[in-house]
């Protein structure tokens, strides 16, 4: 085993670190709230230029045929600056589903890699949280040579800036994954911001026409592809959370040396030293179990083994993220709950990472069902 970065990973890491340090200042991130669809256009162009959107795309389709350890290396750096660009949707979920689709999606993958197309995944439904067996509110019905799609999706992450959406639906052959351009007829979207500044939307489909080749997968193949994509997305989120926590260690230890109370730097107080030590232990354990999840996803293990690894990792990382992000605020006192200090942004980002792709309750139930 080797826990050190490969040459590729070192390059990825170093260029990412340079880029986020230059580009994603706190002020810049706060300014993105005023952008209509939340997308940092200039930033996204760099994502494409640096090849980040090609990592999971197979070489034969113009990508880098990278692995999840590569994705994780990048995601950790993005997490260190609370970057909310739609990397998980367009850099992880979409390449996974599109390159595994039964119809060739080479063109769209090319546009994704080039940064001109962005694809969201529409899965959650009213009263259906996280993963669930089969969509009930979204139905795909045969119609002529193709199909029509009707129904309601909620909390479609990154939808406002997306050019396409992959929709989970129940069709004539069971589960189905359907690709729809966001400007198709019969789509109504209600867009909103999340608490970390990222965007999502509820999408209503009212007899939207779907060409036959827009059905990316159906039946068990669709379920398997969705499951793989979601597990990769989750691990990417975990990597971001680990990067965020590690950044908080730096921020907090520096603050403890600088801030004075009762006539000395507050880092002299043993109670705060011990809080920092607990944050260190949690972060260390979080990174360790992230490696375990990566070893399963990249190691050719069965879907159940991957599901177990991702679920255990999500439980442990979430627990760590809660402790670290909460204590980071506590160590900052009142300043920690203002919008003007980094730690409140890390707190919100970790909260969203924990809650959007499956929470601790979900992963506990998933483990019981394996």
């Amino acid at each position, binding site marked *: 085993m080797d826990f050190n970065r490969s040459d590729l990973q070192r390059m990825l890491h170093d260029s990412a670190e340079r880029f986020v340090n230059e580009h994603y200042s706190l002020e810049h991130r706060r300014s993105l709230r005023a952008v209509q669809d939340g997308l940092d256009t200039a930033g996204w162009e760099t994502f494409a230029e640096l090849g980040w959107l090609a990592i999971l795309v197979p070489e034969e389709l113009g990508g880098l045929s990278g692995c999840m350890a590569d994705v994780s290396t990048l995601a950790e750096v993005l997490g260190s600056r609370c970057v909310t660009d739609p990397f998980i949707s367009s850099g992880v979920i979409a390449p996974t589903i599109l390159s595994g689709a039964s119809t060739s999606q080479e063109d769209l993958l090319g546009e994704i890699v080039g940064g001109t197309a962005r694809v969201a995944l529409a899965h*959650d439904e*009213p*009263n259906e*949280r*996280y993963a*669930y067996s089969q969509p009930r509110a979204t139905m795909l019905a045969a119609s002529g040579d193709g199909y029509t799609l009707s129904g*309601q999706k*909620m*909390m479609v992450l990154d939808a406002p800036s997306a050019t396409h959406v992959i929709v989970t639906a129940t069709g004539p052959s069971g589960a189905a994954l359907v690709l729809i351009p966001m400007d198709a007829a019969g789509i109504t979207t*209600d867009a*909103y*911001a*999340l*608490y*970390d500044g990222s965007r*999502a939307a*509820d999408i209503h489909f009212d007899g939207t026409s779907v060409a036959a080749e827009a059905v990316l997968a159906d039946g068990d193949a669709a379920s398997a592809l969705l499951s793989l994509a979601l597990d990769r997305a989750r691990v990417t989120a975990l990597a971001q959370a680990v990067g965020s926590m590690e950044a908080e260690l730096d921020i907090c230890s520096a603050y403890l040396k600088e801030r*004075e*109370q*009762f006539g000395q730097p507050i880092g002299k*107080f043993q*109670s*705060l030293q011990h809080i920092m030590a607990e944050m260190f232990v949690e972060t260390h354990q979080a990174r360790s179990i992230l490696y375990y999840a990566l070893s399963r996803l990249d190691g050719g293990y069965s879907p159940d083994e991957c599901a177990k690894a991702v679920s255990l990792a999500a439980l442990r990382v979430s627990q760590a993220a809660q402790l670290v992000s*909460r204590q980071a*605020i*506590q160590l900052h*006192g*009142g300043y*920690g*709950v*203002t*919008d*003007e200090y980094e730690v*409140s942004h890390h*707190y*919100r980002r970790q*909260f*969203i990472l924990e*809650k*959007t792709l499956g*929470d*601790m*309750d*979900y992963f*506990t*139930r998933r483990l019981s069902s394996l």
Partner: protein
Amino acid sequence: MDFHQDPAIEEFRNMVRCVIAEELPAEMAERQKAHGGTNSVVADTLAWTGKMNARGWSVPHWPVEHGGTGWSAMQNYVFMAECSSAFAPEVCWGATHMCGPVIYTFGSEELKERFLPDFREGKYYICQGFSEPSNGSDLARLRTRAERKGDKYVVNGQKIWTSCAHESEWGFFLVRTNPDVKPQAGISFLMIKMDTPGVTVRQIPMINGDAELCEVFLDNVEVPAENLIGEEGMGWTYAKFLLDHERTTSSFIFQNKREFARAQRLALRETIDGTPIAHTAQFQQRMARIEAELTALEWSVLRELANEDFKYDRTAAASTLKVAGSQLQQTISELQMDILGSKATRFYPYPQKDREDAGPLWPDDLGGRTAQALIARASTIYGGTLQVQKGIIAKLAFGL
């Protein structure tokens, strides 16, 4: 020991409940219900105070001669509990529970006449200027300087975490009038009109999207000497008097009970795989433990209200209420977040224009929940951090 509740208290509770039902406008309660910040909407606070004042109930805990009702500690407790659970707006705490009591206890007759009626009537909002950027938990080291020049004080300095300073007509400030004595001895308690030249207010953007807390910059602010409350140099004593006066407040027992009840309601509505979350074993276990903690907290408050003989320093008990109550606020808001799941991630404060557009997928009762949960991180910080409270307990209970 006698744990029987006086039956008259239940009669009193019913009477209070009827009055609130009569007085509290539905839309005011709705606003309070969906509010995600620490303080209520200022206009609601003042209007509600006015309505209660018309009943003679706006400052029930004050001495009767200053407009109090003469209720027992338990009656006051019931009154506040009922106001909270009905989602009545918060009162202007600075006026009714801090500055008011200091004025009627230590202030001159002139000051009493000038301020107490206004406070009772909710004529305006007043804000509290205690904390400073550099002193945090170490309040006694405050630096804001008030120099006596003739019949005025000239005030220079900076305050922070001043709630609703931008909507306040007056503020009460701790200022240093004597820099040459030990820190606690040189502090005075001063009323400053917020529109005085030299007073600048900056709202601080917060983690939950609110900007209720402010920085107040004081630049050669001239304050008439008659605005000094009590004696010069006694400000620290008055501030400590407030602490002793309000032993059970920091338990946040009313808010904790109300929010736990709300979590129970949300858990009955939100479902996982078709089952209400309230019926899943995971949440039942968690909610049982929280209910146990909440019940313990309530009985800790009752012990304090009943003036139990206590083996340890009473201040250690007050810090205990703060330690338990502040953490419970966080625990309950985290519970609400977990009940709402991914829905909790939406930026969805209230009152906000976009709420009207949200449609049936987003029930009203989600509004403000996350904003509240985010700002609840401050509950273990303000009013003496968790760490400061533990230090107080170790010192006062055990002499460590």
